[in-house]
């Protein structure tokens, strides 16, 4: 399937997007373009990356979770979606697994992720 891979890479390249390397546990700020009628504005979603899927290529997505007024909210962002304007890493987190689903059962301080330190 190398030709498919090459095709995906080429399309991804042509979209000309740059984003930082992100890992599960990172706290990120995702700038998304939101259309409201004729107006377009930037909406920011800040939270913890709990999952990455499908690599970093054209098919890749990542899930960001945050708690919004007591309700857990998760959003799945495709890396190459035209509505994802910018991704900013606020903090690297120290975690021991690739999928942080356990955060769903935790609230407040228990859901806090340790900062990555050396």
């Amino acid at each position: 399937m190398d030709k498919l891979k090459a095709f995906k890479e080429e399309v991804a390249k042509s979209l000309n997007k740059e984003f930082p390397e992100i890992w599960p546990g990172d706290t990120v700020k995702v700038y998304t373009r939101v259309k409201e009628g004729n107006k377009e504005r930037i909406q920011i979603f800040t939270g913890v990356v709990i999952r990455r899927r499908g690599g970093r290529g054209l098919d890749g997505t990542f899930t960001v979770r945050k708690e919004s007024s007591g309700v857990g909210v998760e959003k799945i962002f495709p890396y190459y979606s035209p509505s994802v304007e910018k991704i900013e890493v606020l903090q690297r987190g120290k975690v021991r697994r690739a999928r942080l689903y356990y955060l769903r059962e935790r609230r407040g301080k228990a859901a806090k992720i340790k900062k990555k330190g050396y």
Partner: protein
Amino acid sequence: MLGLVAKKLGMTQLYVEGKAIPVTVLEATDGVITQIKTREKDGYNAIQVGFIDTKEKRLNKPLLGIYKKAGVPPKKILKEFRLDDVSGFEPKQEIKVDIFEKGEIVDVIGYTKGRGFSGVMKRHNFSGGPDSHGSMFNRRPGSIGQCEFPGRVVKGKKMPGHYGNERVTIKNLEVVFVDPEKKLIAVKGAVPGSKGSYVNIIKKGN
């Protein structure tokens, strides 16, 4: 209806006007016209096209004869496309991906993945029985009829049997991407068959 043979590479998604669209990427092959059929001579208008080079020993004598007569190297797949008007086509002419353009609606014909002898749940989407609580009715089809009257099973009763590997036409797929240089073409939606299998892409109308 002019068409092409293409190899299914796989699926991905593309962004068109801000929306993610599921696409199947196909690698088109170049076809060479081996024969022009006309109403006067053959009773109908069509062009006969060979695709994908192959070794001479892989073909039988009658097929080889076709290619010898046309002066074309032996091909793996031979297809006929019926057209209203065959003027403008001549033997040895090449048919390439550029017959398709972005935004065009096409049909795709292929063979579905073979599933062998399948049970009724896979083949006909029966719901089967419960899995637990000592069920013993896990994937069975249930009753297949009544009693002494009619005393037989109705024709066409959905039962286990061979499933898949059948010719399927998917109609009205939109061409979202064409690259004549790399011979790639992407259509919106899914296409029958596994990755690496050959499908026909057919233009709409004559």
